[in-house]
């Protein structure tokens, strides 16, 4: 199969004729620019003003284009700009006309972020397909979960892709999963796989990733084991030099300590605040209500589990529906628990909305009582504390909250106190988001941000970050900090955490985050630790259960074990990639 395109028609008519010398310069310039190796990224002129390009990123892009067999595993440590490297390679392939049909597979939460990054940084417009017609576009981004559905998978498999990019590729380490099998059937000319954690449990995962990328590169798993693996668990290796030499032909792993970047420090300031008597009374009542609701849900679940054994198929279906509802209710309880410590106004708003789901009269009376109690509270301790922290601040700062309602309150209060503010959240469209960030960069002092809208944004022109409420998922904290503590930040980053004593906030801060040293571990380690958690439950559910049920010590134990396992993997990583990694030296 071959494609020959000869553009032998001229779109442009001659306007100006050049001199003989200019003619000669043009002819020679074109002839001497013909070089076998790509020594210069010609696509760079389009993005060099938008992003700060680092040497290791240019080296990586050139190495992949020049030396790799159309396949590459980009495994830089977190924070070194893998997405930028992939973007540079994609751009180069496009401008050099190596690739036209391009598919990017991402985890569901990152599809829009990729689309935005490719647009804003590389001026490349990728489409997120909804229907089959959308595949007429050459550049597609789709979450792997959507891609493997019947509606999309047949179309994707039917196209011969010039370039396939797989983000968070470590999720394909298991050969038995549907995702792995699906990716295996995609026809592609070139393939880039991206992961910061090529090793999460053992070295066999690395084999599986490479085998997916380039079947046969390491021969069979048994042969690989014979040659390079010392023990059955796959945590110790042999022939490390040979293994490294082999990996260098297909994998790049730049390490933070080997690149020319000065990473600034993180200074953590934790503000543990005391609720006023009224606030604490309200909080206790609200939590006791939540606890009671949760116990009821659990009780029903237990009874139905028993019944399940004797149920018909129809009854089972009906129960599944109920379960779904209960799942939703549990989720709402989790949200409520988080909202009641965010701010008093947010708490009132959340409780009012929760009333809509309550049918029981007694419960309604109790809820109204709690709401009235909240309405009687005269002062908001957290808000006052925030104003104290920022009172004398002249520099730009960012406040993170998980809730849009709290965001509005903060905006009003800060405006009253003379701060110029701009908000940023997931409800805004792409244009509005751009404007907000530009306003913050050029004019406003405070950016009030929710988690939903901030992923992937570079806010390193500010170095002060305030966590007005703490997310329960440690990765979210990491993502927030990652907005400012990243390449390009020149000042030490100041992080202020606000938490109320004897509430779920201080519980998370002291009993969970402290244990895993959330604010101290290097960027990326958190992901590794969380991947080691044995429980398959959502971490927010786990935290909720362990907070509500004081006797539940599972999460604590699980987190500690995960931290130890992560240490073992770090050792293995060090043994394979040693001090120089697999990047530029």
């Amino acid at each position, binding site marked *: 199969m071959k494609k020959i395109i000869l553009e*032998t028609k*001229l779109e442009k008519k001659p306007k*100006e*004729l050049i001199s003989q010398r200019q003619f000669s310069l043009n002819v020679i310039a074109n*002839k001497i*620019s013909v*070089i076998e190796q790509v020594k210069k990224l010609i696509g760079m002129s389009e993005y060099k003003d938008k992003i700060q390009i680092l040497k290791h990123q240019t080296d990586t892009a050139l190495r992949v284009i020049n030396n790799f067999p159309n396949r590459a595993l980009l495994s830089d440590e977190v924070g070194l700009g893998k997405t930028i490297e992939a973007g540079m390679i994609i751009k180069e392939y496009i401008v050099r006309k190596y690739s036209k049909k391009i598919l990017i597979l991402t985890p569901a939460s990152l599809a829009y972020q990729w689309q935005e990054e490719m647009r804003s940084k590389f001026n490349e417009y990728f489409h997120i397909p909804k229907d089959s017609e959308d595949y007429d576009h050459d550049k597609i981004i789709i979450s792997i979960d959507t891609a493997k559905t019947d509606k999309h998978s047949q179309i994707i498999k039917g196209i011969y892709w010039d370039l396939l990019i797989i983000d968070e590729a470590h999720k394909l380490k298991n050969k038995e999963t549907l995702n792995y099998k699906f990716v295996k059937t995609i026809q592609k*000319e070139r393939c880039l796989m991206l992961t910061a954690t090529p090793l999460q449990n053992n070295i066999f995962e690395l084999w599986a990733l490479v085998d997916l990328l380039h079947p046969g590169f390491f021969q069979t798993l048994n042969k690989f084991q014979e040659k390079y693996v010392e023990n059955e668990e796959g945590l110790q290796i042999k022939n490390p030099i040979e293994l490294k030499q082999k990996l260098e032909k297909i994998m790049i792993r730049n390490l933070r300590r080997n690149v020319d970047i000065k990473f600034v420090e993180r200074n953590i300031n934790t503000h543990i605040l005391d609720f006023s008597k009224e606030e604490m009374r309200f909080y206790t009542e609200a939590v006791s209500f939540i606890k009671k609701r949760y116990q009821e849900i659990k009780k029903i679940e237990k009874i139905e589990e028993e019944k399940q054994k004797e149920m018909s198929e129809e009854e089972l279906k009906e129960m599944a529906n109920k379960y779904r509802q209960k799942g939703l209710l549990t989720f709402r309880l989790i949200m409520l628990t988080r909202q009641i410590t965010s701010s008093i106004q947010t708490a009132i708003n959340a409780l009012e909305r929760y009333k809509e789901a309550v049918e029981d009269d007694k419960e309604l009376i109790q809820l109204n009582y709690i709401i009235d109690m909240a309405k009687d509270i005269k002062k908001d301790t957290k808000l006052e504390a925030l104003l104290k922290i920022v009172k004398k601040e002249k520099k730009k700062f960012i406040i993170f909250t998980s809730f849009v309602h709290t965001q509005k309150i903060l905006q009003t209060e800060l405006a009253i106190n003379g701060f110029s503010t701009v908000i940023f959240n997931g409800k805004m469209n792409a244009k509005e988001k751009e404007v907000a960030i530009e306003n913050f960069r050029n004019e406003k002092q405070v950016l009030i941000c929710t988690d939903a809208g901030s992923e992937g944004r570079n806010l390193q022109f500010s170095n002060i970050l305030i966590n007005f409420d703490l997310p329960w998922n440690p990765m979210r904290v990491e993502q927030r900090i990652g907005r400012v503590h990243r390449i390009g930040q020149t000042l030490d980053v100041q992080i202020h955490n606000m938490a109320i004593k004897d509430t779920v906030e201080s519980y998370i801060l002291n009993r969970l985050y402290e244990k895993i040293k959330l604010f101290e571990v290097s960027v990326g380690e958190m992901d590794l630790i969380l991947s080691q958690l044995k429980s398959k439950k959502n971490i927010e559910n786990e935290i909720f259960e362990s907070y509500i049920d004081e006797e539940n010590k599972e999460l604590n134990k699980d987190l500690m074990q995960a931290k130890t396992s992560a240490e073992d993997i770090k050792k293995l990583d060090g043994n394979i990639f040693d001090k120089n990694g697999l990047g530029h030296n």
Partner: protein
Amino acid sequence: MDLDIIEKFFLMYLKENKIEYEFKNKIYTVKFKKEDKQIYGTEIKCTFDKKTSEDNKINLIENGNFLLDNMIEKYNEKLFFSNLIVENQKEFIDDLDNKRNEIGKQNLSFSTEEKTEEFEYYLYEILLNSTSGREKIVKSLIYNKNICVDADGIEISHLKENKEVLEIKFQEEAGDELNNIIKNKITLFEKKHFEKINELSKIIVEHSEERYKELQQKEDKIRKDINKLREEIIRASTFNKKQTLTDKQKQLHKKLENLINKNKTKKAQLKKEHDFEQLALKSRDYSIHAKIIGVAKIKMPIFYTKYSDKSKYVYFPALNKIFNSKGQNVESEKEIIKKEKEIKREFKTPKVNYEKINQKLNKKVEFKKEITVEKKKISKPSMSNFI
């Protein structure tokens, strides 16, 4: 790339852009103008000589050098048009005599006619992209209604600006001729592409064979254990021991049966994967993309020579090349024919020879038969067997 050409370009660039420079001991000291100072600084010392560069720790001008890249960038990214002329010179006739010798028809009589004709000059950028790699080539051709020839190596020093106003018409037909001009390049490129595919295909086959072999070996390992047990059963001194070993052997048979069933699915999957990978490899395409990057009208003298055997040749002094009537350069004509013969473009997908592997393995291990026999003996143990 020839260093002389790069140096020629470098000097031409400085002259065209009125940039002052000094040249001493192989070192150029270039003094940049105000507008370039931000990029290059006030002055740059550079050389085209590697040793001089190392000894003096100064810029070596070669492909990939920042200074050269910027110079190139200024001239190679836009479509250009020009109107040129090659003036007739006395030495063209002498050159023609030399070129006639290359044709090798000294015994035939000939007649030569000199003409000045107008040509379109086209400079094309051709991007070739395939499994074996990527290549960019720049080709040029000159074209008019009578003849179209490869214009690489056009002698720039012969060209002058044409003061006459000529109407520049661009001939789309020239594009069709490009195909012929680059045919040889494409054929070689195709060859490399298929060689690479064959190489990758071989890796896939070997990989599949190994995986198949490993599955088979697991089965053979159990067969070996069963055979070992059979020997032990025969040698067993007590009934109890015989019974225990027989039970163990039964379990192994069961295990083998399960494994064979499991492997059946795995082998089918393996074959599916192998076929898919081969198919994907086969459908890998290669592409050729050509676009015009420069056009010029060139008025120039050419010489038509007609031999007594009716063959016709055209000599282009500006190219210092003689072409036959098909537009083929006489020098490279024979070489092209030779290369084309060498090229094999056929691609066949190698297949995994599962049967062959089976044969090899069975030859080595040779258990199948024995197991069938053993099964009969051991599946119904009875006292009489042992007394």
